[in-house]
Every structure is written in C-alpha cells, then in structure tokens.
C-alpha cells in the first residue's frame, strides 16, 4: 500500500467498499507524506492531524458497519484558508487576520462534513486570494511540486501544490480571476470553476462579490464531478446562489467526445496575446485529440481577450477595494506589497467606471452566450506561459496577467483547467474548457473524454525522487 497517496477519491471509495484499507490507514499514510515533503512545498498553513485521525476513525466505523454516506465518505480533503472551518483560524494567509477564528463552517465545509469527508487542514494561498506569491507574509508561499523553484500558480496555490504532491485527492479552491484554474494548470491537476452561483459563497472571505466562485480541485475529472455533486446546491443565505442545482454532474463522463461541437478560441492566444510556443503547440495538440476522439472542432471568435479581461479587472479592483478599504486606511503595513498595490487600485476608480463596467459586462456575457449557439464547449488557453521561477518578480509580473481565465469570471460560465502538456523545463501546461452556464455535465464530459484519450493525468512530479534523496542523505 505504498501508493495510497496517489489514489483518487473514486478509487478510495472502491477500496473502502472492498475493505482493502481503512480511512485511518489512508490518513496515516497522507500525514506521513505531508510530514516528509511539505517542508519543501509549504502547501499547508494549518494541518489538523488529530482532528483528521478522529474523523477517519469515525468514518471507518460507519463505512464498515454498512452506513457509507456516499462517494466522499472517508475521503481526505484540504480547504483553502479563505474558507471557514468552525473553531479554526481563517487567516487568508495574511497578518491582518492572524487571530481570526471562524465560528461556523462555510456552507461548502458543512456539505463536505455531511458527506463524510475528512478535513485535513487549511491550505496556503496568495494573501486574500490576490497578493502573491509574497515573501513578506506570516507564512511562506506554496511551491510547485514539479519544480520547487517555480511558482505553483495562485491564488489557490496550496490546493494545487497539495494535489500535485500527493497530499490529498480533493481540495477546495476559490476563483475570482482564475484562482482555481491557474494553480490547477500550473501544478498539472484538474480545477473546476463552476457556474456563478452554483456553489455557495457563504463563509468564504470575499475578494470581489460578483466574480467569486468556489470549486473543487482534484487529480481526475471524475473526482471533480463527485466533489461538485456534494458542493453544489441552493443556499438561501447566499444572495448570489442559483435558484437550482441539478446534481449528477458525472452523468455523461463515459459518453466520450463523439458528437460534441467544440469552438477553439485561437485568437485569445494567437493574436490577442501571443502565447509561449510550447503552450500554443500543446493547445493545438489538445484540439487534435478532441477531433480524433470524434468531436467537431472549429475556430470561433469571442470578444478580444483584452476587452473581457479589462472589464473583469474593473470589477476586481472596485469590489476588492470596497472589502479592504478600512484595513488599507488603518493598517497598510500589514499587507504584503503585492496585495497593497492591487487592493488600493479601486480607490482611483469612480462610481461611473463601475457602472460602465456593468454595462459592458452584459454585452460580453451575451457575446459568449451567442458563441454557444453553435458549439457545446469552448477550448482555449489557460496560462499563456509555463510557470516562472517563484523568486523572479519581474517575470512573475509579466506572465501573471497573460491568461485567458478571468473572462469567465466576468461572464460566470463554468470553466475547467487540466494538464495538456509538459514544457521542455518539465512544467505542466494546461488547456481550458468552458461550458454553457449550468451545463457542467457537458463540460465534465468533454474533459473526461480528453483525459481518457491522453496520459497527462498519470504523470507525477519528480518530487518523490527529491524526497527519497533527502531521506537517503539524512
């Protein structure tokens, strides 16, 4: 049982059913791996080993007594430290909230608990989901398991890094401008930003109210569907919560790509912003794979990437300023420099700018919806470059805005990032797939078809070698 750490949630459930190992054995193996490798990854801010083992014991008793609650029962999960777990700190990776203890579970955490999932702990992030990677914070930034000298993407950095390092099979992330899909793509895992409103935001510290999404990060598409089944649902106490949620998100995972109509949004990365050649080649290959699998693939045009991302940026600046204004006035020195610079931007926008952005938003949502008259899925770039070194501020500042994720925070469409290549430097490259609003079933179907046709999801970072070498040296 040496490879328990690479099992998916679906495989864990099957193993419990066959009594191959217990939740306590699984959690024990993961805790051992985290103790061995996290000192170089820094995925966790707070590891609740005691609580996780207690939950594992309880899960084992229930499952083996024939009272399994569902596919996530006994499955370890990690929670981005911007999401409340009752009785634990929610620091948002910031000095500002170091003493903040959550009183009640976020809705998503309550749903995971009810499903029997085991909460392993809180995962690191960019400060307040916006400022990172930063070295002037109370906790170190997470690092990329594929190469610890490179950044893991953000802002759900710890979530992506923990999955890629084999610390857990499911993590929660949040996504306001791409913060699930960036670390998912950069760490070579799967990240799903659901349709706006499908997953409750209650108990999650806001970054920008009308852009914030919560979603699962996993190592397989099936696990993303299983997790979404638990997370999605109407919450009357979240004013943005969608009035419906269908569940059964994995219904079409086995249907394959045949018959799917895919629109390849080439102009995002070929003319709006020119992607790194390795990214362009990997995206072309992903489109070829989908065609080979029976999908029809045609080029399609959306509004310019700069227009979509530019309007999203006004919302991000204005709404995040509204959240942070008082702290920025009173405690500017308690923020990382990166956060301070980003969060103060809204102070220089006017009410008219915000309303103008709202007017543009409707026009852009309609334009993306129009594209879905002719296709079922959009395929486009995720990041336009492989991850740069974590300590290269200049390159980080250049490459971070080079992405095609934030348009779908603006429009609210569901979007998923998954690995579709490895750079010459050995770093993951990702493709993004986008679905119609509230059609996660088809989005996950397309992603599953791609996953089945390729072997990227089986690749693992060379971290173990480093870990083994370190142990041998010790």
């Amino acid at each position, binding site marked *: 049982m040496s490879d328990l750490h690479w099992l998916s949630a679906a495989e864990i459930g099957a193993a419990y059913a066959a009594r191959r190992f217990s939740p306590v054995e699984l959690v024990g193996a993961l805790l051992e791996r985290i103790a061995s490798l996290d000192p170089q990854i820094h995925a966790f801010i707070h590891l609740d080993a005691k609580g996780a083992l207690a939950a594992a014991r309880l899960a084992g008793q229930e499952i083996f007594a024939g009272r399994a609650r569902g596919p996530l029962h006994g499955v370890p999960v990690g929670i981005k430290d911007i999401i409340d777990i009752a009785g634990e700190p929610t620091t948002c990776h910031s000095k500002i909230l170091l003493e903040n203890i959550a009183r009640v579970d976020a809705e998503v955490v309550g749903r995971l608990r009810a499903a029997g999932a085991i909460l392993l702990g809180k995962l690191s992030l960019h400060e307040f989901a916006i400022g990172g990677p930063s070295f002037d914070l109370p906790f170190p930034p997470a690092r990329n398991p594929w190469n610890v000298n490179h950044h893991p993407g953000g802002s759900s950095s710890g979530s992506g890094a923990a999955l890629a390092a084999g610390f857990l099979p499911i993590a929660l992330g949040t996504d306001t401008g791409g913060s699930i899909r960036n670390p998912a793509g950069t760490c070579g895992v799967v990240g799903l930003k659901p349709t706006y409103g499908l997953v409750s935001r209650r108990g999650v510290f806001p970054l920008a109210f*009308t852009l914030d999404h919560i979603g699962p990060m996993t190592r397989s598409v099936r696990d993303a569907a299983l997790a979404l089944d638990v997370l999605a649902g109407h919450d*009357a106490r979240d*004013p943005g919560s969608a009035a419906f949620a269908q569940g059964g998100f994995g219904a079409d995972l086995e249907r394959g790509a045949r018959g799917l109509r895919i629109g390849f949004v080439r102009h995002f990365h070929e003319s709006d912003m020119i992607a790194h050649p390795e990214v362009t080649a990997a995206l072309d290959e992903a489109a070829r794979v989908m065609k080979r699998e029976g999908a029809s693939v045609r080029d399609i045009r959306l509004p310019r990437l*700069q*227009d979509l*991302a*530019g*309007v999203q*940026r*006004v919302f991000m*600046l204005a709404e995040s300023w509204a959240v942070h*204004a008082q702290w*920025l*006035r*009173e405690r*500017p*020195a308690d923020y990382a*420099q990166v956060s*301070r*610079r*980003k*969060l*103060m*931007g*809204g*102070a*220089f*926008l006017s009410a008219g*700018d915000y*309303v*103008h*952005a*709202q*007017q*543009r*938003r*409707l*026009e852009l*949502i309609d334009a993306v919806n129009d594209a879905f008259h002719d296709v079922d899925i959009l395929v486009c770039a995720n990041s336009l470059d492989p991850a740069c070194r974590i300590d290269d501020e200049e390159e980080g500042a250049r490459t971070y805005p080079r992405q095609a994720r934030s348009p779908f925070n603006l429009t609210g469409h569901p979007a998923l990032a998954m690995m579709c290549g490895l750079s010459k430097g050995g770093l993951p490259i990702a493709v993004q797939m986008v679905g119609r609003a509230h059609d996660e079933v088809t989005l996950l179907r397309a992603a599953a078809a791609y996953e089945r046709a390729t072997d990227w999801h089986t690749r693992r970072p060379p971290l173990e070698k480093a870990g083994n070498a370190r142990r041998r040296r010790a």
Partner: protein
Amino acid sequence: MAEKKPPESALDANALACAAGLGKAVKQFPEDVAAAARSAVQARSALGAQKNAAAEPWPPMRVRSAS
C-alpha cells in the same frame, strides 16, 4: 539646488488617495499608491468609450422576496 518635486500625476494620485482615506499609505508606501493609481488608469482605459449610456447594467436590480 531646488528640491526635486514629484510629477503632477503623482500629486494627483496622492490627493485622490488622501481623499479616499489612504493618507497613511501615501506617507508609508508612496510607490505602492502610485502603482495602484496606474493600475486603475489602465483598467479604466481598457473599458473603452461608453457605447450606450442608457444600457442596463448587469446584474440588474431584482426585488428580493421576504423569506
């Protein structure tokens, strides 16, 4: 030798920042205030010219029913 003055745009940014209550940040982190102001200018210019001032903003006002 005359004291070097900050450029006009920085003065404008600082005035706006102070009006927004960011006096402490202006004093302690003037470069960050200037960077934030620049990013807002970029964001505003990315919005482009308003095409239709009467267009309905999104999301629209909705009546919230009593629960």
